[in-house]
């Protein structure tokens, strides 16, 4: 067992955990923040995507004790029913989900992904690595490909992200 202190959605949470506990299980089982989903536990699906220090990661692929002091943002930290984050609202408007199980991961990934484009981080779909990244559908699809949606809401998810990205900040 090991002590770890995480800053989850702005709140300091002190935990005593089995060192084998993933960040995902720390969130879901110990903090009972079940918005982050477990689709594979193998880093193959993206359902567990959260933001750590502003960057999106698969929380099933990292141990909680590796994140001492880190700021973790989960879907619960983005917005709540009645107080939706613009990305959450856009997913509802564009029906960017069906069963909902990949959805928190898709939304966390989209929010962080738009920041990556803003910061000029290139992707496989970026033609000119030195020019500012473009907000094309192709870029969005490429950058979101770590988040599987077996219900196949991709076309709607891209519409939702495009709408949020197009909004003046």
């Amino acid at each position: 067992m090991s002590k770890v202190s995480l800053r989850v959605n702005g709140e300091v949470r002190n935990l005593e955990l089995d060192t084998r506990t993933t960040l995902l299980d720390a969130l879901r089982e110990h903090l009972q923040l079940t918005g982050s989903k477990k689709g594979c536990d193998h880093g193959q699906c993206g359902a567990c995507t959260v933001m750590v220090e502003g960057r999106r990661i698969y929380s099933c692929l990292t141990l909680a004790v590796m994140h001492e002091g880190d700021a973790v943002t989960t879907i619960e930290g983005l917005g709540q029913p009645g107080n939706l984050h613009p990305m959450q609202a856009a997913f509802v408007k564009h029906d960017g989900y069906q069963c909902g199980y990949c959805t928190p991961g898709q939304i966390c990934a989209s929010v962080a992904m738009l920041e990556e484009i803003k910061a000029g981080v290139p992707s496989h779909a970026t033609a000119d690595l030195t020019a500012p990244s473009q907000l094309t559908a192709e870029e969005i699809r490429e950058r979101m490909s770590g988040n599987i949606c077996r219900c196949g809401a991709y076309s709607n998810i891209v519409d939702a992200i495009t709408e949020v990205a197009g909004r003046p900040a």
Partner: protein
Amino acid sequence: MKFDTPATNNPIDQLKIVGKPVDRIDGPRKTTGTAPYAYERHDVAPNQAYGYVLGSGIAKGRVTAMDTAAARAAPGVVAIVTTLDMPRLEKGAMNTAWLFGGPDIQHYHQVIAVVVAETFEQARDATAMIRVSYAREPGRFDLAAEAPNAQLAAADSGEGSGAAHEERTGDFEGAFAQAPVTLDATYTTPDESHAMMEPHSSIAAWEGDKLTVWTSNQMIAWGKRDLAKTLGIPAENVRLDSPYVGGGFGGKLFLRADAVLAALGARAARRPVKLALTRPLVANNTTHRPATIQRVRIGAERDGRITAIAHESTSGDLPDGKPETAVSQTKLLYAGANRLTAMRLAVLDLPEGNAMRAPGEAPGLMVIEIAMDEMAEKLGMDPVEFRIVNDTQVDPEHPQRPFSQRQLIQCLRQGAERFGWSRRNATPGRRREGNWLVGMGVAAGFRNNLVMKSGARVRLDGSGGVTVETDMTDIGTGSYTVIAQTAAEMMGVALEKVTVRLGDSSFPVSAGSGGQWGGNSSTAGVYAACVKLREAVAQRLGFNSAEAEFTDGQVRAGNRSAPLGQAAGADGLVAEDHIEYGDLGERFQQSTFAGHFVEVAVDVATGETRVRRMLAVCAAGRILNPKSARSQVIGAMTMGVGAALMEELAVDKRHGFFVNHDLAGYEVPVHADIPHQEVIFLDEVDPISSPMKAKGVGELGLCGVGAAIANAMYNATGVRLRDYPMTLDKMIDRLPEVA
């Protein structure tokens, strides 16, 4: 309510709320992560322990010994239940493979133990300490090798597709021999995995001899019945609750090992147990869509009229299993006087084959619709026109039986127009854009419409709020929303005034989610309950129920009017009913139709295929919610891209299991694979199907897509592939030379 005559005008026809593209009412919960899925119900039972299941390491044989000493001594372990602790459990009515108990192993990853511990990590580690000894026996794992031994077998998928072992109309062989233009080709489709994002999960808690299971299941009443049967306890002692299901696609139609082992683990541990199948267990422990070998023969006159059509399919399954009903649609899709369909079943020792989204029709259309493309080419006809020439408005095997609605021609014509089909070059391999060979393909979509008995309870409260309770499930299909729309329309209240509670076996039994029957049938059940509630309201208010109108939260009759809530009184007003069906389904063939159009680009050097454009034009009765219905269709089109281009459970023919049993090895489409998708719903109401005049749409979107992609690839390259998935290795040596 018995639905045995075609629907006439009813309150649904107002279409104030039904038929509108409203946002899903469960959207805010799903997008904020506050919709609780099975494994996440921390609140429902205190002191939950963690279960972890162990799957068999052999495909066939026996477990001769299990050494659990080290596991029992491991930190945190509360209980261990092994398959040697009990005789084989009775099988549920819907199951083919045994779920647990006894030494015999029927397939790889059959569950042989559950370890219960204080934490997930402890349970996982202790499971790895169990030493298992097996006596391995040889098995039959190769469909192609077993196909010669396959026996004719009839089957009903239970999901709308089915066929006799062999069905003949006219003289197929004679007509085929005489036809001036013929095709005789054999095609294969692979084993596929549902790969829903939420693995099968359950929390089980016993209170005395009463068991509650919070689970992830499409068919609550089947699950309750079969769990009771498997555990040997009375059904009334079992409660299932499944308000959110993280995808099913047929993989959660039936009782599976997660619920059984959670219950057994909880009994042994004397406390609630939660467990989920690990991702690698999903492919081999549960069910899959079986692989098929299909032979199609078509004979036609030179004008394109089909005179002979035969479709035969061979698939495999465990003993007592069923064939994939891949020939079903061919009985109904095209005209032709001389017909033959047949299904053969080989015995295989692979995991259980069973329903996956559009069982039968999905793999059947993947094949018959390539065959139609090949035939059109032989005839020198446009593939859209060839299909139109062979349209039929009656069941070709029983011409006295008409389709209730059949707008396949309209689907194809509108689709062709919209997609720019006239720009397609009929000669393959002619359109080149840089390194890309570009082509267009078309296929007909066809899926039978099934209606199922479905019940609901509706409650009115003093503020005019309406609560619907039914054991119906929402597996992403939009049930919450279309049920709320139905109740709001019927009771004349705003959508916000309706609360929908689903998935609890203590609610009235519904149609459940399967076979694309859920949306139409479950809302028809809610309609029936609302008709009763309207009568009760009118009676309470002293209104003549025949003339009472329910609008804007008011009830009006003649010159009298009262707020709806007034009828509820202090205790509220409750009505319960179900819809059941007469013989309209026998008198009329009820089916749904689509025209699928696809444009692909194939890299001339690598054979990589990219799907560029997709369009589906659907005719599926009244569309209850165009927004969620469209999502069902695009989701199915996406699954069709997977089936065409990448999805295949790879069989290890020596050891007998699906090798690529996770989401890295079993590839499904990702964002980068899917272009913008377009869906058009034709205006249609089908009064034969139900008072809702709707039909199913959730599986139609999958039916035909794979073939449309395959046909587009052929049009792009001139390389005809007949074995799915159409991966680049199958065509690269046949692509034109790169200059």
